[in-house]
């Protein structure tokens, strides 16, 4: 039980990596504040987690790219007297295409959700973390953000921005005992990657398998827990040794 008496806020929590992190954190005793645009899936996940674990799960609907919605949700969290120690900025989209073929709306959505969404939630969460005299922020970047990939220049830009943001924010908040780190997943089996042929990807992965959401969740658990109490400003790859 690495997260007893902690509360973790997770965005993009209704499926994939976010869902896996929520379930693993709950198994380790954390109460959860889950945010997603899909309240139907969030409600099912809340019921599933509360049935299996003695934790409290609060759910809120918000689009992380919408500043006013995030502001409103965090006001609600404060008035609901929820104390938050861990923030997982997981919500993201992956809209691919060679740059010449990318429509402005798709470019904007990549940046709005992946980059601005992370910044919006981090900004709104600082006050909550300070009230607890510290905490941990975990941002989700990508191997595409660290290494780049043909046909993903915009997605890559949206994710590499998270690396600079993480490193700078970690310096800004270290005096407040708030650690800020990022995870860079490789090829993880989620609905976001289902359009990519797995066999083709496996050839470039040292460990010769596609990653699972739990592989990422395990690192998110480490970064949220006191096991990483001296770790901040880092980007941890979870990619099975993938080469791109």
């Amino acid at each position, binding site marked *: 039980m690495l997260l007893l008496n902690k509360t973790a806020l997770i965005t993009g929590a209704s499926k994939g990596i976010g869902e896996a992190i929520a379930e693993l954190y709950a198994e380790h005793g954390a109460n959860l504040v889950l945010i997603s645009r899909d309240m139907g899936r969030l409600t099912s996940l809340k019921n599933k987690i509360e049935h299996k674990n003695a934790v409290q799960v609060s759910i809120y609907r918000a689009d992380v790219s919408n500043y006013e919605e995030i*502001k409103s949700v965090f006001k609600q969290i*404060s*008035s609901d007297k929820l104390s938050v120690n861990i923030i997982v900025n997981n919500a993201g989209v992956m809209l691919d295409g060679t740059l010449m073929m990318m429509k402005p709306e798709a470019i904007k959505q990549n940046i709005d959700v992946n980059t601005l969404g992370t910044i919006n939630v981090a900004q709104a969460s*600082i006050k909550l973390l*300070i*009230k607890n005299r510290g905490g941990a922020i975990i941002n989700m970047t990508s191997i595409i953000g660290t290494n780049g990939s043909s046909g993903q220049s915009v997605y890559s830009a949206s994710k590499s921005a998270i690396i600079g943001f993480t490193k700078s924010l970690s310096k800004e908040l270290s005096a*407040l005992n708030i650690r800020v780190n990022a995870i860079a997943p490789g090829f993880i089996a989620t609905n976001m990657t289902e359009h990519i042929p797995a066999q083709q990807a496996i050839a470039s992965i040292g460990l010769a398998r596609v990653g699972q959401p739990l592989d990422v969740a395990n690192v998110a658990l480490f970064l949220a827990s006191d096991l990483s109490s001296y770790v901040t400003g880092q980007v941890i790859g979870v990619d099975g040794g993938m080469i791109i």
Partner: protein
Amino acid sequence: MDNSEKLFSSFAEALGIDASSVSDGLEYQSIPEWDSISHMILISQLEEDFEVSIDTDDVIDMSSVAKAKEILSKYNIVF
């Protein structure tokens, strides 16, 4: 303790200074203790003590103790 005394106490606790050093005229970055880092602690302290949620625009605008009173008045805190 009235709200002015409560405000001075919040400032003193957040900035780690003596309450007697706090006055309406105290301004952001006029003393080493009130820098951009302690400003974040101050906002958190004010939110906790006055049970309000301060908007980002107001966080940026809070440039003095007098301004803090003006801003908190918008949140129905009477001085």
